[in-house]
């Protein structure tokens, strides 16, 4: 009986404390609801509207009809129309499209020739899921009404950048982003909270250190640490899994520096919201899960519903994964990927400004 009273005393105390911890309380409800919605929408193997381009060199009635039929499948969405196969390759490299449809000038003759593929599908092979979709697309019947039932594949799939379709090639560049998201946000998320918990902050805000000196001073050392982590992951990826680095290490480092800054700034912002280190960690997890699910790391970005894509576009990791896959696998230049860098820079400025504005140099 006595033991039960003590047991209940501990339970009651625990619940009372929990009730007063608003962020934890929010996490109890918000984490499962938020994550199940994200999971549910993101896990969607029925991929639609992959960004695509077409180079119709034949420009015949039949080829146009073929393109229209492809469009109707809703698997591809033609956002560009270009002249040559080279143009398609350029779009692929810059990450603007996942699939390029090349229709050669002699398309009409190829259609009736069972030995030759009627057209080519140029596919971004960095994501094996997309290659799989392209293979299904290649089974699409093509031809004049009478020849439409050709049994063999009418289209030739040409996976670029990862012809062997090895998963590690796809995973490792994305993994850099996941690992950096976790470590970088966590490092800074606890940074201010820890000083507050230990009482250091009351002394610090009474010195002439300015808020921006404090904030920037707290993130710069971690940029270096993040770059070391990048070198480690890329090194191990090359050594054990033969993951290529087709671009230069410098380009990868520049992209990583932008990404790390964005994450550190977000961490600092979290640090000004959380009251305890525990809350800061919970908020980090809250950012980490969508960074894994909605960034294009696990599922093809284009295949996600629009709402999930909007959330994904806000996450730094989405842009960084596009950067790493572009630099490491497709040898895309930073200029071609400039828009992703720009988004990361804007994110950094916004999060940093938010952190500086939220950080009060007073105690009231």
């Amino acid at each position, binding site marked *: 009986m006595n033991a039960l009273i003590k047991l209940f005393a501990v339970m009651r105390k625990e619940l009372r404390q929990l009730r007063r911890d608003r962020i934890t309380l929010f996490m109890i409800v918000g984490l499962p609801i938020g994550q199940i919605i994200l999971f549910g929408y993101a896990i969607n193997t029925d991929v639609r509207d992959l960004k695509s381009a077409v180079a119709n060199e034949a420009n015949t009635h039949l080829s146009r009809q073929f393109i229209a039929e492809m469009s109707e499948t809703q698997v591809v969405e033609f956002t560009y129309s270009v002249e040559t196969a080279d143009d398609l390759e350029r779009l692929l490299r810059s990450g603007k499209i996942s699939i390029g449809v090349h229709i050669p000038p002699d398309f009409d003759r190829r259609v009736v020739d069972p030995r030759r593929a009627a057209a080519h599908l140029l596919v971004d092979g960095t994501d094996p899921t997309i290659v799989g979709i392209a293979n299904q697309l290649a089974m699409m019947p093509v031809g004049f009404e009478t020849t439409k039932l050709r049994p063999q594949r009418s289209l030739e799939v040409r996976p670029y950048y990862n012809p062997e379709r090895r998963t590690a090639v796809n995973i490792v560049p994305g993994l850099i982003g996941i690992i950096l998201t976790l470590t970088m946000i966590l490092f800074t998320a606890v940074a201010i909270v820890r000083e507050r918990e230990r009482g250091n902050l*009351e*002394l610090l*805000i009474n010195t002439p250190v300015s808020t921006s000196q404090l904030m920037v001073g707290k993130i710069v050392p971690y940029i270096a640490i993040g770059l070391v982590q990048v070198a480690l992951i890329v090194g191990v990826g090359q050594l054990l899994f033969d993951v290529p680095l087709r671009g230069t290490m410098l380009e990868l480092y520049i992209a990583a520096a932008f990404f790390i800054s964005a994450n550190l700034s977000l961490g600092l912002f979290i640090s000004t919201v959380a009251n305890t280190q525990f809350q800061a960690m919970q908020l980090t997890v809250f950012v980490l899960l969508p960074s894994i699910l909605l960034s294009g790391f696990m599922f093809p970005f284009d295949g996600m519903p629009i709402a999930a894509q909007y959330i994904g576009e806000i996450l730094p990791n989405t842009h960084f994964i596009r950067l790493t896959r572009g630099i490491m696998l497709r040898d895309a230049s930073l200029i071609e990927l400039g828009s992703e860098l720009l988004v990361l820079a804007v994110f950094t400025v916004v999060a940093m400004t938010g952190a500086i504005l939220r950080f009060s*140099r*007073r*105690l*009231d």
Partner: protein
Amino acid sequence: MPTQSEFAIQAKGLTKQFGKLIAVNHLDLDVPRAQIYGFLGPNGSGKSTTIRMLCGLLTPSDGSANVLGIDVPGDANILKPKIGYMTQKFSLYGDLTVHENLDFIADVYSFSRADKNSRIAELLAKYDLVDQKNQFAGTMSGGQKQRLALACAVLHRPELLLLDEPTSAVDPKSRRDFWARLFELADAGTTILVSTHYMDEAERCHRLAILDHGSKVADGPPAELQSSTGMSIVEVLADDPFAAQSAIETRPEIVSATQLGMRLRVLIPERFDKPLDIIRDALAKSGIEATAKLVPASLEDVFVAVTQKNTERSN
């Protein structure tokens, strides 16, 4: 440039309200330069809140103050280089060494390399921390931590030191040494505002403000406060002090009767001209064996007297 007033701090009607609680209630203060000014009061009397308002950490709900010629509330950033602040809780970095902590603070105050090294060496020697130079601050004793905190607070040679219960975690010997250092600083021209709830510390201050429930209830040099309590202090020596206390407290004239071991300290307002008779009468009626004599007021008596008045007033 603000003009050199004779006061380091002047506050008028300084008030801080947290929700319904009035933590500091219309406080007027005049702290002369190069003196040690004490804030004496129990926990929750508004000492820390006042200090935090004076250094710009809290915004007053009402009233204003002038600290070293700078208006509060106002631009606290001009004030920061001129004041040193020692928080109630140890606020240096426990996972940095003594030297690293001092080095950090020196950089924060933009010391040049040469100045920094000589100043740190000077402070290590002065505050008896040479042997602990490479020790982690977190592993030091209470007294050592306190010396380090003071060294960091005075590193940039501030004109004004604000010390929030600096000796609450240290032994009596360390406290004595600490006060010797404070006097040294005051002699060199530093104004020191120190809060405490120790009577013996309060007695050492040049001037003293007694705070109770956010209000200033007395103000002046300790000796002056002791001689003007408006109370007669009677010391009663009894075999059964508890019974004596019960007997004495039946008399309506009594302000308070506090037990100190075998003795009782009884406060009776001066307007009753025969305090000893009142007490002896009360004791005799209850048949209690005890001796009573008049004694001079201690600071504790002052404290009891003024806080009692304050309670009566607010009731």
